[in-house]
C-alpha cells in the first residue's frame, strides 16, 4: 500500500513538474544562433576569423543577450552552396535557431537568400558583398551587416583621380562577380572624375602565377589597380615587385588585396599599397584599439575585416534583441529591430542600414606602412557615412546594370 502511494505521488509530481517546466522552458530557453561558415577547404582561415570574432563579442558579454543565455551552433559550409543549403535547413528545422549568421562567398549568399525568405527567418550576412543582394535582388529577411563590393570602390575612384592625380590606370582583377563589381565601381567614379581605365585584365579565380598577366600590363599607365583575393593576394605583390613594376607604377587595389588577413604573410613588397575598405586594424579610435589588443591576446593575430564584421554582427543581434525585450521568437518584430540597429561606436566606426538594407559606414583609404616591424593599413583619408549608392540617387543608380566583366565598358582600352 505504502509503495503504491509513493508511486502515485511520484507520478503526480512528475506530471506537475512537466506541466510546469515545459512551457516556461520553451519561452525562456536560450537564444539560439546558427552560424554557417567555411570551416574546411580553401576559405577555412577566413571562416575561422569569422567565428573567432563572433564568439569574442559573446564571450565578452557573458554569453547572454537581453538577459537570455545564448547558444551558438556553428556549421561548416565547406565553401559549397549545396552543403550550405543543407546546413541551413538543419539549423532551422532541427536546431530551431532564432537567427542565422554567415557565409563568405557571394554565390552561396545568392543560393541561401530564397531559402531564408521561405523560412522567414532573419539572417545576417557579415561578409557576403555581392552588390545585388541589397540592390536589384533584394531579400527581405537578409540583413547585410558587412558591405557591398563596390561601396569602397566609389570613393576610391574619386580619390585616385582627384587626390592621387592619376590620369591613366591599368586594372587587373580576379575573374568573378566580386572582382567585376570592385573594379566596375572604381572605373565608374574614376572616369567620371576625369581618369581613364586603359586596360582591364582578368585572371581566373585561384591564379597564383601572374607572370603572363604582368608582362601584358601597359607601361604607359600612371598606376595599376589590382583586385586580389585569398591566395592570389599573397602572391601578387611579390610577383609585381619581381617583374620590376613596383619601381615604375604605383600599386593600388581593392580592400582584399591588402587586407589584414594577408598582411602578416606579406613582406616589404606590399609597402605603399593603397586600398579602400570599411575597416582597418590600424584605425586610431579607442574602441578599435581595445578590440585589436583583446583580439590579439585571445587569438594571437591581428583581426581582419572578417573578424571585425562578425564581432559587430554579434553585437548587432544583441542590440536588436534588447530593443524588443529579448522576444526573438517574434520574427517579424525581430527583423524590424535588426533593420533599425544603429551603432555609433563599433571598431569600424558608426554603422546603420540604408533603406535597401546595406550599411552606411565610413570608408577608409588605407596605405600599407611598416610600424614596429609589422605591416599596417594606415588610414590616410576617411570618407564618412558612405552609402552603397555613393553620391548617386538610388533610383538613378539602379537603372544601370550590375557591374560585370564588360560593364562599365572599357572606353579607353
Amino acid at each position, binding site marked *: 500500500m505504502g509503495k503504491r502511494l509513493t508511486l502515485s505521488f511520484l507520478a503526480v509530481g512528475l506530471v506537475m513538474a512537466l506541466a510546469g517546466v515545459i512551457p516556461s522552458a520553451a519561452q525562456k530557453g536560450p537564444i539560439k544562433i546558427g552560424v554557417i561558415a567555411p*570551416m*574546411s577547404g580553401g576559405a577555412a582561415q577566413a571562416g575561422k576569423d569569422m567565428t573567432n570574432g563572433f564568439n569574442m563579442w559573446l564571450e565578452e558579454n557573458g554569453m547572454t543577450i537581453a538577459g537570455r543565455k545564448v547558444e551558438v551552433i*556553428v*556549421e*561548416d559550409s565547406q565553401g*559549397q*552552396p*549545396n*552543403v550550405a*543549403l*543543407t*546546413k541551413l*535547413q*538543419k539549423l532551422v*528545422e*532541427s536546431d530551431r535557431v532564432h537567427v542565422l549568421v554567415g557565409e563568405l562567398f*557571394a*554565390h552561396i549568399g*545568392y*543560393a541561401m*537568400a*530564397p*531559402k531564408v525568405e521561405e523560412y522567414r527567418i532573419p539572417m545576417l550576412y557579415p561578409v557576403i558583398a*555581392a552588390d545585388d543582394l541589397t540592390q536589384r535582388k533584394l531579400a527581405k529577411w537578409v540583413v547585410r551587416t558587412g558591405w557591398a563590393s563596390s561601396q569602397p570602390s566609389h570613393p576610391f575612384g574619386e580619390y585616385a583621380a582627384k587626390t592621387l592625380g592619376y590620369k591613366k590606370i591599368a586594372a587587373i582583377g580576379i575573374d*568573378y*562577380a566580386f572582382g567585376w563589381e570592385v573594379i566596375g565601381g572604381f572605373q565608374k567614379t574614376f572616369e567620371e572624375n576625369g581618369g581613364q581605365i586603359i586596360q582591364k585584365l582578368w585572371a581566373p*579565380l585561384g591564379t597564383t602565377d601572374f607572370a603572363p598577366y604582368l608582362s601584358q600590363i601597359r607601361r604607359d599607365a600612371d598606376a595599376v589597380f589590382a583586385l586580389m583575393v585569398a591566395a592570389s593576394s599573397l602572391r601578387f605583390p611579390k610577383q609585381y615587385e619581381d617583374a620590376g613594376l613596383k619601381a615604375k607604377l604605383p600599386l593600388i587595389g581593392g580592400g582584399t588585396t591588402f587586407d589584414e588577413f594577408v598582411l602578416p604573410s606579406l613582406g616589404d613588397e606590399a609597402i605603399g599599397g593603397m586600398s579602400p575598405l570599411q575597416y582597418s586594424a590600424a584605425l586610431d579610435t579607442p574602441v578599435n584599439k581595445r578590440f585589436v589588443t583583446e583580439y590579439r591576446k585571445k587569438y594571437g593575430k591581428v583581426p581582419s575585416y572578417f573578424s571585425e564584421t562578425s564581432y559587430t554582427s554579434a553585437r548587432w543581434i544583441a542590440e536588436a534583441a534588447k530593443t524588443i525585450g529579448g522576444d526573438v521568437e517574434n520574427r517579424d518584430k525581430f527583423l524590424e529591430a535588426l533593420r533599425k540597429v544603429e551603432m555609433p561606436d563599433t571598431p569600424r566606426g558608426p554603422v546603420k542600414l540604408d533603406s535597401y538594407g546595406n550599411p552606411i559606414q565610413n570608408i577608409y583609404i588605407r596605405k600599407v606602412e611598416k610600424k614596429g616591424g609589422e605591416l599596417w593599413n594606415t588610414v590616410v583619408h576617411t570618407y564618412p557615412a558612405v552609402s552603397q549608392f555613393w553620391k548617386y540617387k538610388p533610383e538613378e543608380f539602379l537603372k544601370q546594370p550590375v557591374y*560585370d*566583366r564588360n560593364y562599365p565598358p572599357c572606353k579607353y582600352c
Partner: protein
Amino acid sequence: MGAWVAPVLLLVLAAVPPFTSSYVLSLVTQALIYAIVAMSLDLILGYTGLASLGHAAYFGLGAYAVGILTTRYGAGFWTTLLVGVLLAAAVAAVFGLVALRATGVYFLMITLALGMVAWGLAHRWVSLTQGDNGISGVPRPVLGFGLSLARAVPFYYFALIGFLLAFVFLRVVVRSPFGQALIGIRESESRMRTLGYHVWLHKYLGFVIAGAVGGFAGVLWACYQGFVSPGELELTTSVKILLMVALGGRGTLLGPALGALLIALLENLVSVYTHRWLLILGAVYIGTIVYAPEGILGAVRQWRMKGDRAWARG
C-alpha cells in the same frame, strides 16, 4: 544478394518518412538523388571498366537545363526533364566520341578534361548561366493533378520514385544481352572483339546511357536544391560520385546507392559532432580500400561466396 533484401529496403524507404525529422528526410532525399548519378557512373565504371572523372558534367547539365528553362522561360517540369536528359545524352554522345579513343588512365584524363570544359562553360558563359553567382530561385516542380512537391515529404517520395525508375532501368540494361556484353568487355576486350562484338559501339552506348541517367539525376537535384551553380560540375563533385561507387562496390548498382547514402550521412551527421569530420571520412575511405577494395557490397558478396564454398566443403 538474397532476393529479400531489395523489397525490405524498399519497404523501409517507403515507410520511414512520417517518422523522421524533415532534416534527416532531406538528407535521404539528397542521398537518393546522388544514388542515381552514382548508379549511372557504375554502368560505365563497374560494368564496363571505364573510370570517368567527368561524370559531374552530365549531372550539372541536367541541373542547368532546369535552372535556365524554369527561371527564364517558365518551363514546366516535364519539359525540363526531357530537355535535361536529352541534353546530357547529347553531350555524352559528343564527349564519348573523344574520350572513348583512349582507355585506362588516358580515358580518365580525357574525361577529366572534358568535365573541366563543361565546368568552364558554366563558370564563364555568364549571360546564360549567371556564372559564379549561380541560378537561384528554381521552383519546385508542379506535376499537375494538384500535387505540390514544395514540402519535404512529397518531394522525398518523388525522389524515391525517380530513384526506383533509374534503378529498374539500369538493372534491365545490365541484365540484358547488351549489359552482359559490357561485362564481357570489362573482362576481356580482345576476346569480345574476337567473338565478333562491336566493342567500341557497346562502350559508346553505355557511355551515352550513363550520361543520360546522370542528367536525370541533375534534373531532380536542381528541383530539390532550388539552386544551380558551377559547383555541380566541379571536379570535386565528379570525385565524390566516384567515391560513392568505390565505397559501395562497383558493378553492383545497389552498392553505389549505398555508398551515396553513407557519404551523405557521414558528411552531414558527423560534422555536427566534430569539425575534424574530414579525417573520419578519410579514414573510412582508407579502411575501404585496405579491407574491402571491392567496396562494401563487393566485400559482402565475397564473404558470402567464401561461406558457400565452406558449406560445400563441409
